[in-house]
């Protein structure tokens, strides 16, 4: 019977119902769009924030005292350890593999260069290498300095990782010091060996890297006699801001707490997962960058929540306006059903069924519109598609019904107060 009443009541009150449904659609579409974006934001903004650079540094575990000046490890008082190049792919196989936005291995040492035999740091690295990742749907990933330091620019050209030619990119300061330019050949001397490298580019980083010479990782490995070895990996990971829980001592966590910590993309849990796959490694978060990224994400999420709240409030107000008019027009009808014996709960049930119907219709249409809106936001802001999480649909429907319910609270309260004696008398 409710179905008949509601269908017919909707038919004759098309205008009011359409207004209420439109109000719900507006709220629901914004909510589903923002929820869709919200659930993608860590990845999307994480990618944007990768321009901040690496936020995890992986080095070999070493019990000795390290001597490091200007980013170059001069060794320790004990035997120098190295990481293995053939294990690098495993970084893209950890639990939070999709949060690894880029990584760059390096091996560096101090060499003599140029006609005056000046001491200078030579860094062997990957620039933008296509790395195969076995047993993963994405099959390959790009790794190298360009994936972690996207703001670096080169006058000339980048070195191609696959060519393995004897080429070098000079930091701007190093080029000035050695008086070299693109096209020159520079002689590098190390431990009695020497190699000639052709300068293909001048590097601008705004940092200490401008004092170094960069070349293919394999060239430095050959020069140092350390085939397949690396001394450092810089990792750029999309992370979630560290909260009080993240800062707890993991050795004192229960199994459930540890699982929760491990399965949250905190920088510390990602660092641990890297240590687990790279033999003999010590992965340390760069706290300054990590916390800047975390805070930025926190602020964006807060802003999105505030926008969502405003959308919910505006939508509920729209529903309230439409439903107040509708209930005013239905005073006599409500008086009749009360006069023929409808109890408060039955009158309420009638309205609740109506509200749910408006909420579901508005929610479903709003969800569809919201997904479209999310894609527009994705393309305009992040230049990529938003992957819609399945949770967004039920969430939108529940919130849409909630919006309708909030919007209908006052009109329903007024409806339940209607005195049949007064309305049936025509007052």
């Amino acid at each position, binding site marked *: 019977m409710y179905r008949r009443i509601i269908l*017919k009541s909707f038919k*004759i009150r098309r205008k009011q119902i359409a207004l209420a449904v439109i109000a719900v659609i507006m709220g629901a579409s914004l909510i589903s769009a923002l929820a869709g974006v919200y659930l993608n934001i860590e990845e999307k903004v994480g990618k944007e924030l990768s321009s901040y650079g690496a936020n995890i540094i992986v080095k070999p575990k070493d019990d000795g005292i390290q001597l490091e000046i200007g980013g170059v490890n001069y060794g320790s008082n004990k035997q120098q350890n190295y990481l293995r190049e053939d294990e690098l792919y495993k970084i893209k196989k950890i639990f939070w593999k999709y949060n690894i936005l880029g990584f760059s291995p390096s091996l560096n040492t101090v060499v003599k260069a140029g006609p005056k035999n000046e001491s200078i740091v030579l860094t062997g690295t990957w620039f933008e290498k296509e790395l195969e990742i076995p047993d993963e749907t994405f099959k390959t990933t790009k790794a190298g300095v360009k994936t972690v330091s996207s703001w670096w620019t080169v006058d000339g050209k980048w070195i191609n990782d696959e060519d393995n030619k004897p080429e070098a990119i000079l930091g701007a300061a190093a080029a000035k010091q050695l008086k070299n330019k693109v096209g020159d050949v520079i002689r590098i001397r190390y431990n009695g060996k020497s190699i000639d490298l052709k300068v293909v580019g001048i590097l601008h980083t705004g940092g200490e890297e401008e004092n170094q010479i960069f070349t293919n990782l394999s060239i430095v490995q050959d020069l140092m006699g350390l085939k397949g070895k690396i001394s450092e990996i810089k990792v750029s990971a999309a992370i979630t801001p560290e909260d009080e829980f993240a800062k707890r001592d993991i050795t004192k966590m229960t199994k459930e707490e540890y699982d929760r910590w491990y399965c949250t993309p905190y920088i510390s849990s990602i660092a641990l997962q890297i240590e687990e796959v790279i033999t003999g490694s010590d992965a340390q978060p760069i706290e300054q960058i990590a916390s800047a990224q975390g805070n930025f994400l926190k602020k964006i999420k807060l802003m999105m929540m505030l926008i969502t709240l405003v959308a919910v409030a505006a939508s509920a107000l729209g529903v309230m306006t439409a439903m107040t008019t509708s209930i005013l027009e239905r005073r006599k009808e409500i*008086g009749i059903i009360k006069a*023929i014996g409808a*109890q408060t709960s039955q009158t309420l049930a009638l309205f609740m069924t109506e509200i749910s119907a408006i909420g579901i219709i508005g929610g479903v249409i709003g969800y569809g519109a919201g997904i479209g809106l999310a894609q527009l936001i994705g393309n305009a802001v992040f230049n990529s598609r938003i992957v819609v999480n399945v949770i967004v649909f039920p969430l939108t429907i529940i919130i849409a019904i909630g919006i309708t319910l909030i919007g209908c609270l006052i009109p329903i309260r007024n409806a339940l107060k209607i005195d049949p004696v007064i309305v049936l008398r025509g007052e």
Partner: protein
Amino acid sequence: MDKNDMIVTTNLSKSYDDKTHVLKDLNIVIRKGEWVNIMGPSGSGKTTLLNILSCLDRPTNGSIIINGTEVTKLSQNEMAKFRRENIGLVFQQYHLIPYLTALENVMLAQHFHSMVDEEEAKKALELVGLGHRLEHIPAHLSGGEQQRVSIARALINQPSLILADEPTGNLDRTNGKIILDLFKKLHKNGHTIVIVTHDPEIGMMGDRLIKLMDGRTVDERESA
């Protein structure tokens, strides 16, 4: 109170703002199966009395026992439940839901009472001679037909008491006669009927006529 009494009011009063006294110490007894008409000029309190007897309104003072239940002690929800189980209401303005068909208007009363039985609702409309107008909405029915739908709705839950407020007030003579014939049939079948009316012709019908003036009973006699 006698077990044959359907309605007993004792010192029933209704006033608004302590100034306007609409009903003043009314003591009325209506027996089961009786047809009682209530007449009086406008403002005499007859509609207020009918609203109180319908459990739509509450008296300021006094008591009303309907079918053995002291209704003034019931909560709002209990009054609604009592009304749908014991009382059938017929209004001058018919008060049908405009977008529901004749059949659905009758089924609506079933819905709030217990459960919908379409066949029963059809029978009730056939009983009032509207078996051929089941799917018509009120706007497509004449005034007399709408009132007959209203009577079918009042009867569908088999109430022991039927209360009618000017049931023929908006009808022409022919349709008015059809409605009154229906009431006669209901009376014959043992229903207790109370009709508030201005029409002296209706006043002559039934078992008894109560005349109200300024909220008091001024005359009470057996109908002719």
